[in-house]
């Protein structure tokens, strides 16, 4: 049992690997196959490669604003890998790494940030809610969805992910409160990356931890090392299993860091001390896990080379798919407003079409 063991009010935090990748918690080290461990590493590499590429594409004018995930690889991969097929993910907009694991290929995320609604039309069967840009608003929606699963007596949990800034929103309070009252099968995952654009975590709450807020809502909360993929995986898995079994919600605060800017439109050097960034670079989640795999005799130069080549290939293919995706038609911006198009939209569409066609003809 992990949940309940680490008291956030006492500053306790769950960790399996220390910053060097050494096991510090043998008792709770998950016993996973080599294939699964390599799978974690592979996903983290793909996430970072996809992220680096998106950033570059924005700088080259091939993508609009993009929110980099660098530094979040362990929390996103660890949490998404902990989910079962029937669970639903309610992500925040920085969650590219989690989406890939939940059946949303990279090119959908690229399409979204390029500016095409098709990027939120996820493949059938992907149990993922689209990105919510109004911060924290996915939280009560995820709770409502989870409540629905409970009413239908389905073994299904919702993983709701958000940042530290979102915990200041009323939606965080409402979601947590409703989940507690209805004992909804929801797991709240706060990816506390210390910064909401330029506003530090201390300006979001006077509470010592975010995890301790769960106490007031009547369910457990805990802090995990968010740069430790094994700790994240184990904690989220236990919380989801508990939720599906009727044990109610859990709040997990993952202690991590936004290693890049808030978005490509931001310049974090304006407000963030260089030393802080440097200190967190030493805690890089990928390096840490690589050290762990190396110590176990799993990681070798050749594995790295193969995985990185594969990641590059997947990302290049995603870029190709996103950039060659058919452009939406004029009708598409009207077509999905209602299930059936009302007369005033038919009229507006016809007028616009005539104007656009005239413009083209000229």
């Amino acid at each position: 049992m992990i949940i309940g063991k680490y008291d956030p009010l006492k500053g306790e935090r769950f960790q399996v690997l220390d910053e060097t990748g050494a096991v510090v918690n043998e008792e709770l080290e998950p016993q996973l196959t080599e294939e699964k461990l390599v799978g974690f590493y592979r996903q983290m590499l793909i996430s970072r490669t996809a992220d680096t590429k998106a950033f570059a594409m924005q700088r080259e004018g091939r993508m609009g604003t993009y929110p980099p995930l660098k530094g979040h690889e362990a929390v996103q991969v660890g949490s998404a890998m902990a989910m079962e097929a029937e669970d639903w993910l309610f992500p925040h907009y920085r969650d590219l790494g989690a989406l890939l694991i939940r059946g949303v290929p990279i090119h959908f995320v690229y399409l979204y940030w390029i500016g095409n609604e098709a990027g939120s039309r996820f493949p059938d069967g992907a149990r993922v809610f689209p990105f919510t840009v109004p911060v924290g608003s996915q939280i009560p929606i995820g709770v409502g969805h989870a409540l629905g699963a409970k009413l239908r007596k389905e073994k299904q949990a919702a993983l709701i992910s958000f940042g530290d800034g979102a915990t200041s929103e009323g939606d965080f309070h409402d979601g947590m409160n409703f989940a507690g009252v209805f004992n909804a099968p929801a797991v709240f995952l706060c990816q506390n990356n210390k910064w909401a654009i330029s506003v530090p975590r201390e300006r979001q709450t006077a509470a010592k931890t975010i995890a301790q807020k769960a106490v007031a809502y009547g369910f457990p909360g805990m802090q995990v090392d968010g740069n430790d993929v094994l700790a994240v995986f184990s904690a989220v898995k236990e919380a989801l299993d508990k939720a599906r079994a009727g044990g109610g919600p859990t709040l997990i605060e993952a202690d991590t860091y936004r290693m890049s800017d808030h978005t490509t439109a931001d310049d974090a050097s304006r407000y963030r001390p260089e030393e802080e960034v440097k200190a967190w670079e030493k805690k890089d989640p990928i390096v840490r896990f690589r050290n762990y795999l190396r110590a176990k005799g799993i990681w070798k130069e050749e594995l790295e080379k193969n995985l990185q080549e594969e990641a590059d290939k997947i990302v290049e293919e995603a870029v190709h798919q996103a950039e060659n995706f058919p452009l939406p038609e004029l009708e598409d911006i009207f077509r999905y407003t209602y299930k059936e198009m009302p007369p005033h939209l038919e009229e507006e569409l016809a007028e616009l079409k005539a104007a656009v066609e005239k413009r083209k003809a000229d």
Partner: protein
Amino acid sequence: MPALNIVEAVRLALREEMRRDDSVLVMGEDVGKNGGVFRTTEGLFDEFGEERVFDTPLSENGIMGTAVGLAVNGFRPVAEIQFMGFIYYTLNHLICHAARLRNRTRGNLSVPLVLRAPYGAGIRAPEHHSESTEALFAQIPGIKVVVPSSPADAKGLLKSAVRDPDPVVFLEPKKIYRAVKEEVPDIEYLIPLGKAKVVKEGKDLTIICWGAMVKVAEEVALKAQEEKVDVEIIDLRTLYPMDREAVINSVEKTGRALVVHEAPKAGGLGAEIAATINEKALLRLKAPVLRVTGQDITVPMPKTEDYYIPDAERVLRSIRKIMSF
């Protein structure tokens, strides 16, 4: 066929829809054992149980957010907001999610929910209980805004709203919640959304109205008759998207139009209706389109609220003005 008021008709519609479809849920504050502050959900808790009729924590934002999640998960939640004055907490979820989820997922996810709220002045309610802010909602693409004006309409329109594939804001004119009883068929019937109703035919002037103002228009029509003015009354029923065709057809016939609404004048739906008439029937007009509305002020508290609500006298004066143009 029982004689029902609007409260009872709303209740009957909810009961029929809940019996018909297990995915229909009723949620909100005091909707359970207490049966709602206006008793619109009375008896539903006993019949359908706490999993389908449930009280929530006191948070309209939480109600709306969870209702969106339930709707995405295949339910048809009917969420009650106790008074329109408290509905503003729901706006973020209504505008950012309920209204646009179908569009932003290219039709993959949808939000078939109903947000019910009593609205309007005239029952001597405390502050924040008497607003009529429907125009705020009539500019949110992706939702529908429906207002019944009678018990029979309340039943047929609410049943359609529950079955609608898109989110519906259903505003109930509380001034006439219990004012009139009329025969409401206890058989299955639906009134289509997006279609207005000609309440009374006439040839001289069209009054376009909805909700509690339909009763005012009917009263005025009798008085106008004494002055040899034959008034046609159109009840919009659905404010958004609006049945422009019905308005234009009527104005083409009468050549004169008057919009009566309780909401403030500036930026109100009366402006939208007048503009639509200008666009489509200007040359048929024999006089400018006028509006009788609430004032552009904060809705007064009970001691002075009657100054605010359009009444027969104000409507009659505008009719005379139009007829003598």
